[in-house]
Structures are given as structure tokens and as C-alpha cells.
């Protein structure tokens, strides 16, 4: 896996009139996992979007080398297409064909995406992230809606990505059961 790095330098985030957090710095390199923790509304999702470059930070800067993959509450899969073709659309754009973890979706590949359950949609999003073969994974609440078994499997996949030299930043209010995780508590930076 290519060398990757994502560094945020003293960033602040403002939504509307409110400063959600300020002075937050974090760095993640290949082989590292950062867990953004904190209660609802503290700015985890906004931080993920800032790190993804989709939202401009109110202050500070984000530097990145390496390709990004994002999974948030927006699935970005065509609802009317069978799962296989919906995922295939992104494989076509990314030009990837490798065998990636399928998160137990093998027998759902011919089911239209709109018929998938909450947990299955979350797994489809993770499969899309894994299939992109990007080195940096940004995951916003990746374990929401997953049952105990798949929550465990998803964490194993995240850990496998770390072991393969990838970097992961994940926002979750749940605690993780994998090792080598650096936790960043957003509450410490809230304004």
C-alpha cells in the first residue's frame, strides 16, 4: 500500500453561529487507527467532512497524501440497481478489481440496494470503501446498525486494513474492541 498521511493542524469548526471545536490537531499515518470519540452533536461528522476536504475548516489546515475513501450516512449507491452493479459503478471509476472483504454481502449481490436493511446498507458502504483500495479510510459511525457479529467483523476488517499499511480515522460514539487505536476525545476541544 502506498505511503499515506493525514495531518490536521489546529483546526476549528463552525456550524452556523456555534464553534463546535477549536485547536484540534491530529495526525494519522499508514498502520494507525484514530478513533474520534464524543457525544452526539460534538462535531464528529463535521470533523470527518473537514478531513475529507468536503468542508472548509473555520481555522487551521489539513494536509494529506494518499487516496481517500469515505463512508458516512450517505450511501452513494443507486437504489434501483442490484448491489453488485451499484458497487461495480465505483469499481469502474476507481479502476480496481482486487478481491476485497465482502462483509457477508455475497448472497445479496443481485438484490436492489433500496431493499437492503440498515445493517446491510452499512456493510455495503464498507464494501464500497474497501473496494476503492484507498489507503486512508474515513468512517463516520461505521458500526451503527450493525449487529454484534458484523460489528466485530467490521472492526476486524478495519484492523486488517491497518495491518496492510492503511490508515483509518473513524468517528463513533461506541467503544472499539480492537487494539492499536489512538482515541481523540472531541469533548476536550469543544468550545
Amino acid at each position, binding site marked *: 500500500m502506498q505511503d499515506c498521511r493525514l495531518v490536521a493542524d489546529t483546526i476549528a469548526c463552525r456550524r452556523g453561529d456555534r464553534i463546535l471545536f477549536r485547536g484540534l490537531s491530529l495526525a494519522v499515518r499508514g498502520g494507525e487507527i484514530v478513533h474520534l470519540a464524543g457525544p452526539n452533536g460534538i462535531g464528529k461528522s463535521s470533523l470527518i*467532512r473537514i478531513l*475529507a*476536504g*468536503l*468542508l*472548509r475548516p473555520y481555522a487551521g489546515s489539513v494536509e494529506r497524501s494518499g487516496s*481517500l*475513501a*469515505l463512508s*458516512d450516512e*450517505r*450511501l*452513494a*449507491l*443507486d*437504489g*434501483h440497481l442490484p448491489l453488485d452493479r451499484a458497487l461495480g*459503478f*465505483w469499481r*469502474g*471509476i*476507481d*479502476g480496481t478489481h482486487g478481491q476485497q472483504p465482502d462483509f457477508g454481502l455475497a448472497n445479496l449481490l443481485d438484490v436492489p440496494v433500496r431493499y437492503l436493511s440498515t445493517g446491510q446498507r452499512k456493510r455495503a458502504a464498507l464494501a464500497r470503501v474497501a473496494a476503492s483500495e484507498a489507503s486512508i479510510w474515513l468512517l463516520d459511525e461505521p458500526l451503527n446498525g450493525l449487529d454484534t457479529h458484523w460489528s466485530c467483523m467490521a472492526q476486524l476488517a478495519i484492523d486488517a486494513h491497518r495491518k496492510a499499511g492503511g490508515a483509518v480515522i473513524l468517528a463513533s460514539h461506541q467503544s472499539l474492541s480492537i487494539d492499536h487505536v489512538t482515541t481523540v476525545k472531541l469533548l476536550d476541544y469543544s468550545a
Partner: protein
Amino acid sequence: MIRRLWPIFVRDLTLLTRGAQGRGGAVLPLLFFLAVAMLFPFAVGPDARLLARTGAGVIWVAALLAAILPLDRLVEPDVEAGFFDQWALRGLSEEALLLSRIVAHWISFGLPLMIAAPISAGLLSLDAAQLRTVEIGLLLGTPGLAAIGVTIAALTAGLRAGSALGGLLAIPLTVPLLIFGAGSLQPDGEGGLALLAACSLVALAVAPFAGGAAIRAGRE
């Protein structure tokens, strides 16, 4: 860039022509366009001279309204589903994406309108020369309509009353196309075609950048 844009263009085209996910496809604007031409003679009476004099203008009004019809489905669903975020993550510029969408939108409504125009012309008893001018006018004008449509769709994506607002915004912006398009059918009005083409080119040149800026601003 082109290699990665191609699957996106194919998807745009399939969604806009065949319709899915709440998009009506190319059939609805086409039926609308034909319905106007069909109903107009019922409303004003079968006087062939009157129809021939007003028919071309009616064709242009119908084309304009048919272009407004699919506005709320052009960009909004893909912003909502996170497609534009994912494309941005992959370094694809919004401008290129919207240009692809303008082309796809034009193929899905401009081309069908041009194919349907002879039928409309028959219903409105236009002669061959007028039909020729209408077809040339549509060829020159509908790309501009597509460009304005995609810009407005990008601007109103994510707004609650987006579709109503979109129609309202489109009307003043498309008036120049209507004036020159219908004007070119007046006696000695062929000069209108050049002005129509000019309006179309301006709209095409501005649209990807205006729409791209709108989508980026919508993320804030």
C-alpha cells in the same frame, strides 16, 4: 480523467433517459411537448392560417416548459445520495461532472424534442420551411436550455422548495432563448438563429462553473 468520467456520463445518460430513482426519464418532457402541440389547436380553433402564424411560438414555449419539467431530478438526488461528495473525494471536479450532465440532459430532452418537432409542426400546420427553421433553432437553442437547467438544478439542490423555485428561476433566464428562437420564425427573422446560438454558447460556457460553485457552496 476522461476514463473516470466515462462511467459517470453513461450513468447520467441512463438515469436521465430511462429514468429511475424518482427520475421520470425522457418520456415525460416529450409527452408534455407533444401534448401542448396537440391541445393548442383545440383551444384556438382549426384555422390553419392562425395556427401557422402562432404555431412556431407555441413549439418554443412547449420546448421551454418541457426543459423545466425534469429540473428537480437533474442534480438533487445525487447530491442527496452523496455521489457528488464521493466524486469530489476522487478529485473529479464539479465542473467536469456538470458538463457531462449537461450533455446527458441535452441528449435526453433536446434530441427527443427535435425528433418530435415534425409531429408538432404537423399538428400546428407549419410548412416545411418553418419546420426547418424550428429544427435548426432547437438544435442551437436546446443546449442552452440544458445548460441553464443544470445550473438551476445545481443551485436549488438541497433547498426545501427547490423544484418550485427552480421553475421560477428558469423562466427569466430562458427568455432570451425563447425570444430569439421564436423570433427566428418571423419573416426575415433568420438573424435570430445567430443570436440564439450566441445565447446558447454563453449559457454553456457559464453553466459548469456556476453549477460547480453552487454544489461546493451547498456543502457548507
